[in-house]
């Protein structure tokens, strides 16, 4: 039965004339031969059923290839590869003559797609296709930027023969997957209002879901485009559009509500049966003072469920009501069908940046469980009747400073967690830092976006990978990631049926842990692990793919 299931996409692909195109069937199954969307599949679980690499042979996992991806208008041909194919010429797009120079090296910090043996990779303003068998670059596309916030790019989306990515200056660019040639680009948000766009587009049916973000109080929204034409299908605003609409009672006035922020910058998960798309919205603005936005400020820092055909809100749950610490609720929600309190339930699990773990019924949004998953949290006075942490207003930024855990970076950040159905455990990499938050702007009316506050980390109790039993909220194990200093960023995680949990550690090792207890089983030092591991079968070989800065590393078993 299992084998037939895996063969089905291959048979279908055999009948497709264009071998590079994405068969939509792949999007509805656990990722095995491909990694066709941000989390591998729609569930957000990042669990692979592959077992070729497993606990018994992980010691033989070794490097298959490395590929360095240099961003920019085009690297000069390498003198060392005169006899080889070299790197292909860069295809340049954009609406201005001279791109604004961007500081910093390449940085892969999002999903890499693998479809029919080809990898699709993005960095801000840059996209590549690479042979998944040896890392050879097939094409490189460079977008001449007008500016914007170049904090990262979380990956590409794919539909049939086309790939899509967003640019920091707010364009959605569609490329021909075979050649990297631009098909079209379109404006998705207003650069003058200081929007910037980083999220990986998500393809569901004939919907291309595209988010954006802003640090100047402009409202967040999610748009659905026709992936063929780029035509807008619907647009959902993170805040109600007029007073009187549901949720508007949580804002003092229309002006505050329509400048309430809540960008949409982390891709969500999708339940095909319920037809709902789940994702977390970003912080309200001004971020560090609620003086001009009294109330809960819906639907900022919220987990929301949208009907994917209409863009209408089905339900919302707010992990951080009236967020005053820039915490967002922009984590990957994880879809699990399981039992809760003895009843079978369609669940949604979410470890939020504010340090609380939530279990919701994803059909209705009913709250089932709230537990803190860090020992340091000091900003809440308890839970309200909806299961939401109650903010302690004494922990808002003040002239003399307040000591708060977590800092605005959070207990966790965008890096995805994983759920392993074999252990029934939810895994997330987290840390326990503190910041001192000072309000430095005397005039609360002058607060915009993230400004008016100075924040400094003053200590970190530790970095850990933890395993949570969602049925109780109990932490089953906690593996310390020791480091001399504060160490690298939290890692994204992936589990496999080979009884392996992959992640990075604080000093830049790529590690395979035992999901039962967190013991490390295999590692290699990459210096940094900048995205969550992905895995797939190709030519009968299971690959483990990791990114480190501007480089991709592929691993496979030595046979």
């Amino acid at each position, binding site marked *: 039965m299992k084998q037939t299931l895996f063969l089905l996409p291959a048979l279908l692909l055999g009948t497709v004339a264009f071998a590079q195109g994405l068969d939509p069937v792949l999007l509805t199954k656990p990722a095995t031969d491909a990694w066709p969307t941000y989390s591998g599949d729609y569930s957000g679980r990042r669990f692979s059923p592959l077992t070729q690499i497993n606990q018994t042979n992980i010691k033989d996992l070794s490097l298959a290839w490395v590929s360095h991806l240099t961003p920019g208008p085009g690297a000069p041909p390498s003198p060392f590869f005169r006899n080889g194919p070299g790197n292909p010429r860069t295809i340049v797009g954009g609406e201005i003559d001279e791109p604004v120079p961007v500081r910093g090296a390449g940085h892969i910090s999002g999903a890499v797609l693998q479809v029919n043996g080809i990898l699709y990779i993005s960095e801000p303003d840059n996209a590549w296709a690479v042979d998944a068998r040896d890392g050879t670059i097939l094409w490189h596309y460079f977008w001449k930027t007008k500016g914007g916030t170049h904090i990262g790019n979380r990956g590409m989306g794919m539909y049939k023969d086309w790939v899509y990515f967003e640019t920091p200056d707010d364009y959605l660019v569609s490329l021909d997957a075979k050649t990297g040639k631009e098909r079209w680009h379109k404006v998705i948000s207003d650069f*003058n209002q200081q929007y*910037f766009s980083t999220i990986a587009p998500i393809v569901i049916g004939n919907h291309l879901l595209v988010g954006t973000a*802003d640090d*100047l109080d402009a409202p967040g929204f999610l748009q659905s485009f026709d992936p063929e034409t780029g035509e807008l299908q619907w647009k959902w605003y993170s805040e109600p559009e007029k007073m009187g609409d549901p949720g508007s009672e949580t804002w003092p006035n229309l002006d505050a509500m329509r400048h309430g922020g809540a960008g949409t910058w982390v891709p969500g998960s999708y339940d095909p049966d319920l037809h709902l798309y789940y994702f977390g919205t970003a912080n309200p603005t001004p971020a560090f003072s609620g003086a001009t936005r009294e109330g809960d400020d819906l639907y900022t820092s919220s987990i929301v469920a949208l009907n994917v055909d209409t863009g209408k809100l089905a339900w919302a749950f707010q992990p951080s009501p009236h967020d005053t610490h820039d915490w967002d609720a922009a984590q990957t929600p994880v879809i699990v069908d399981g039992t809760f309190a003895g009843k079978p339930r369609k669940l949604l699990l979410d470890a939020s940046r504010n340090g609380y773990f939530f279990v919701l019924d994803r059909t209705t949004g009913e709250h089932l469980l709230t537990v803190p998953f860090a020992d340091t949290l000091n900003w809440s006075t308890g839970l309200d009747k909806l299961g939401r942490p109650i903010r302690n207003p004494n922990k808002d930024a003040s002239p003399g400073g307040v000591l708060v855990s977590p800092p605005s970076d959070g207990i966790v950040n965008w890096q995805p967690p994983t759920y392993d159905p074999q252990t029934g455990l939810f895994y997330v990499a987290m840390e326990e830092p503190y910041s001192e938050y000072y309000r430095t702007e005397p005039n609360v009316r002058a607060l915009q*976006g993230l400004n008016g506050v100075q924040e400094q980390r003053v200590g970190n109790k530790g970095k850990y990978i933890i395993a949570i039993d969602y049925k109780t909220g109990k932490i089953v194990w906690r593996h310390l990631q020791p480091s001399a200093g504060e160490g690298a960023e939290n890692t994204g995680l992936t589990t496999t049926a080979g009884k392996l949990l992959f992640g990075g550690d604080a000093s830049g090792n790529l590690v395979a842990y035992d999901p039962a207890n967190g013991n490390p089983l295999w590692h290699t030092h990459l210096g940094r692990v900048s995205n969550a591991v992905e895995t797939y079968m190709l030519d009968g070989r299971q690959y483990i793919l990791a990114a480190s800065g501007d480089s991709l590393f592929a691993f496979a078993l030595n046979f």
Partner: protein
Amino acid sequence: MLLTEIDFFLQTSAPADRLHWYERRCQPVGADLDREVILYRVNLFLLSLLGLGTIALIAQQPSTPLQDKPAPIPEMPFGSSYPTRAPADPVAVQHGRQIFSANCSFCHGSDARGGEGGPNLIRSQTVLDDKDGELITTVVQNGRPDKGMPKFDLTAAQVATIAAFLHSIPVGGRAQSTGTVDPLVGDPKAGQAYFNGPGKCSSCHSISGDLAGIGAKYTDIRALQNAILSGERRGELVEVGKKTVTVTLPTGQVVEGKLYQIDDFLVSLIDANGDYHSYPRHGAVPKVVVNDPLQPHLDMLQTLKDDDIHNLTAYLVTLK
């Protein structure tokens, strides 16, 4: 030096800088990028020391004939850049301010940040998209009857000066603060009592010893307070830090030194001679004991009250 330099950086940086710094900070110690950041921060600090003197020197350089070349496009600072408007004629700005004050401030506030009925114009889409008054003129001359805004009998030229005034107000979600706030809010007497009493600070520290003159060492109150909280820990990201480690090898040999790096697979240190040693770790072998002299500072974060922090700062700032 490095401690102060990083404090300086964090105290003076815009949130955008710090955000980017966070992404950079994510580099493990020793990674190329991290070295780049270290150099950058050191440069930043040195530049800050040179300060106005440097600017004065630059200003005194004779101008060269090359100056008619177009200025290079400024590099995007810390990965975030939005176009800035060219400074407008100050006379037009002042004129626009007067017209705004007389006609618009009643609803939109004298600072244009919103008032009775009128929205905040600083972050309004119309104002942000407007270049020289062309979009604002349409709104002013036609009004917005649906939103209760009347028409105004102002010429396009007059509205252009209003636009010049509005565009002269800095706009940025990651901008620096415009005013100053006094962070010194505590009571020094209460701080002294806490220092010698329940805070148990005096069990490790002495105001005539290690803390002598600490109030003069930090010119920035917030930097002093952060140093109190962290135990001046910040430097550990870019230097060996204050942790020490004792490694007991299977042979019984004991090696001690400053901890350089530790993870599940390796421990490394720099010994008293400055020699670097690294050892693979296999579970409990070799035996590794890390000593963090600042652990009490980390532990106290879980129980410290904000009032106690403010009082301690107010006390220590008096120790000139």
